[in-house]
């Protein structure tokens, strides 16, 4: 690492800021939809500040607006949040955080921060990616939740601004660099098909968990025969080749 004044502005921070803006703006739709579902301003703000996991938040207000019980909303949101435990495990393994950092890191352990972090090749970049995406999404998500809640439905559908397309591009952009050999491509295709098959027959959010469970079973079954399909794995094998 070069100790220049701009050394913090790396590919990881750029990626983190990009996804923070793309994801944070979605907070407008959450805020507006939450008010429309019948939650008040403070309940809406609390969900973004305290729950802070978009899928669970949307699931919660989705159940409420569909006339579901608060207990059903609680269950849907909690089930959807389970994948964050998987992310926490991965972040702990990749970043080796100090114990005193765990309380705030756990709160910003979400899809975006995990994906940006694990997409980097060295430890410093993984940390910068996690911090930028995690804190960036947190700040912008909460800010735009408030904006969305205040404006209510008048702000309209973010789809009109192409933000749903931006989210799709953001996720494929994170997946793409990992598809370097046949095995990861096959895993990605299998995961996509499995998710599509699970969508119509399971509650929203569960297809991701079903896919994660199948991937974990497959990985344990195939064991150590193949190197880790990550940039980190590549770097390790390069180091092993050196005299």
């Amino acid at each position: 690492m070069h100790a220049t004044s701009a050394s913090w502005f790396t590919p990881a921070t750029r990626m983190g800021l990009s996804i923070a803006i793309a994801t944070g703006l979605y907070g407008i739709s959450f805020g507006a939809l939450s008010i429309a579902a019948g939650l008040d301003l403070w309940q809406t703000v609390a969900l973004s500040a305290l729950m802070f996991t978009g899928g669970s938040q949307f699931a919660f207000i989705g159940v409420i607006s569909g006339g579901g019980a608060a207990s059903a909303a609680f269950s849907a949101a909690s089930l959807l949040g389970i994948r964050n435990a998987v992310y926490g495990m991965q972040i702990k393994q990749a970043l080796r955080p100090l114990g005193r950092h765990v309380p705030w890191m756990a709160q910003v352990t979400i899809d975006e921060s995990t994906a940006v972090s694990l997409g980097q090749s060295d430890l410093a970049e993984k940390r910068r990616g996690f911090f930028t995406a995690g804190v960036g999404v947190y700040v912008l998500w909460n800010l735009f939740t408030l904006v969305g809640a205040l404006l209510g439905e008048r702000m309209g559908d973010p789809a009109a601004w192409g933000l749903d397309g931006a989210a799709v591009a953001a996720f494929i952009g994170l997946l793409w660099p990992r598809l370097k050999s046949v095995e990861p491509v096959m895993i990605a295709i299998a995961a996509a098909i499995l998710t599509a098959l699970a969508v119509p027959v399971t509650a929203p959010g569960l297809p991701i968990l079903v896919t994660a469970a199948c991937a974990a079973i497959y990985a344990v079954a195939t064991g150590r025969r193949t190197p880790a399909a990550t940039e980190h794995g590549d770097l390790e094998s390069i180091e092993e080749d050196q005299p």
Partner: protein
Amino acid sequence: MSELSWWILGACLTAYAIKLCGYFVPRKVLDSPTMSHVAATLTIALLASLVTVNAFTSGQELVIDARIGALAAAIIALAFKAPYLVVVVVGALAAIVLRASGLAA
């Protein structure tokens, strides 16, 4: 506080507790090669799953709309080694253009 507010508070605490759980798996377990392989496979599978959910679903329905155009445009941008922010902007623009031209919902 209303009953709904209590459920919201409970759901928020549960969400945080679940996040914390991931950090309390023993380090010894995480250091194994099998765990690394599982983590790498999980990452790819989860990202592919998130792409699918974001591009092709609306609630519990599979749908084809402007987002598939956004996905295609993003893949083309990635194939040309575009920077990440450009890929994201291309995805948004593709969705806007497809909807404005009436080619997709």
